[in-house]
């Protein structure tokens, strides 16, 4: 039985919009760097960052695309609060296949960032575990309050059917 149903195909092209909630903020940036064990002063010292040519301390490069700070509402049953399509796919586990990021300028503590996700494609391919699996590709555009594009994140997730009888 095919995993890729007509109902699933109808999801292609859908958009999800996450308006800016608040500034990214110095605390959020320092927290992210701490979580990575990254003591680069670029992420916590305004004077150091200014000497490097930035108007203030900056966020680590990938923070903008890794954070779920833009989300609203309570966590779902999996504990997840970030963007998800809630696709009608049962009996599968979801894993990451990869991401392609483009960055257009460093993120500053004062940036208020909004995100628009678009579901670009869903395809079904053979799995090395046997059977097939679904590849779901989405793209997110991150913009500041003025509409300036800060980053693009193209993400591919895989839905693998769980085996039964275990």
């Amino acid at each position: 039985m095919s995993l890729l149903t007509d109902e699933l195909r109808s999801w292609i092209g859908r958009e999800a919009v996450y308006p800016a909630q608040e500034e990214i903020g110095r605390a959020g940036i320092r927290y992210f760097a701490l979580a990575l064990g990254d003591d680069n002063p670029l992420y916590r010292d305004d004077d150091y960052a200014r000497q490097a040519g930035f108007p203030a301390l900056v966020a680590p490069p990938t923070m903008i695309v890794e954070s779920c700070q833009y989300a609203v509402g309570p966590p779902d049953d999996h504990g997840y609060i970030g963007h998800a399509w809630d696709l009608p796919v049962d009996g599968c586990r979801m894993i990451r296949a990869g991401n392609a990021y483009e960055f257009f300028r460093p993120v500053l503590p004062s940036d208020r960032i909004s995100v628009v996700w678009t579901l670009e494609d869903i395809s079904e391919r053979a799995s090395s575990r046997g059977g097939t699996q679904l590849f779901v590709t989405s793209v997110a555009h991150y913009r500041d309050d003025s509409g300036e594009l800060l980053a693009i994140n193209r993400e591919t997730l895989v839905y693998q059917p769980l085996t039964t009888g275990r």
Partner: protein
Amino acid sequence: MTTSRVDTTIAQPGQSLTTGHKTFSIVDLMLYGAATWDWHRLHYDSEYTSRMQLPGPVVDGQIYGALFARQAVDAFGPTAFVRKLEFRMRAMVFAGETVQIDGVVHEVRHDPDADLVVLDQTLTRDGRPVADARTEVRVPR
């Protein structure tokens, strides 16, 4: 992770960046999940991961992007700007495991106002591939 700085004005394809290592304790996974507002049970709940037929809490694959970017910034200095970063997953990593990050200069282009460096980077665990990346960095003159 201590890194030797690479001078992009004389960098050559094939030049290696400093190798790094990262062990992901369950506390690290908690920290990263909290800092990114990602509280998915996959990353800390052993009962949940067992139900998902996984051997333990899973390292969030997104963190690999951060590790690849960090290696680039550490190598090229505070003015380096990561313009593009594309990574593909090869295998999952679980709490308690250690990955090694390696990077090699793939290409260097010299513009009038900046050097553009393309890197090939890999993450491995016990020599087996976990993820690989192609990263493009702009380093102003």
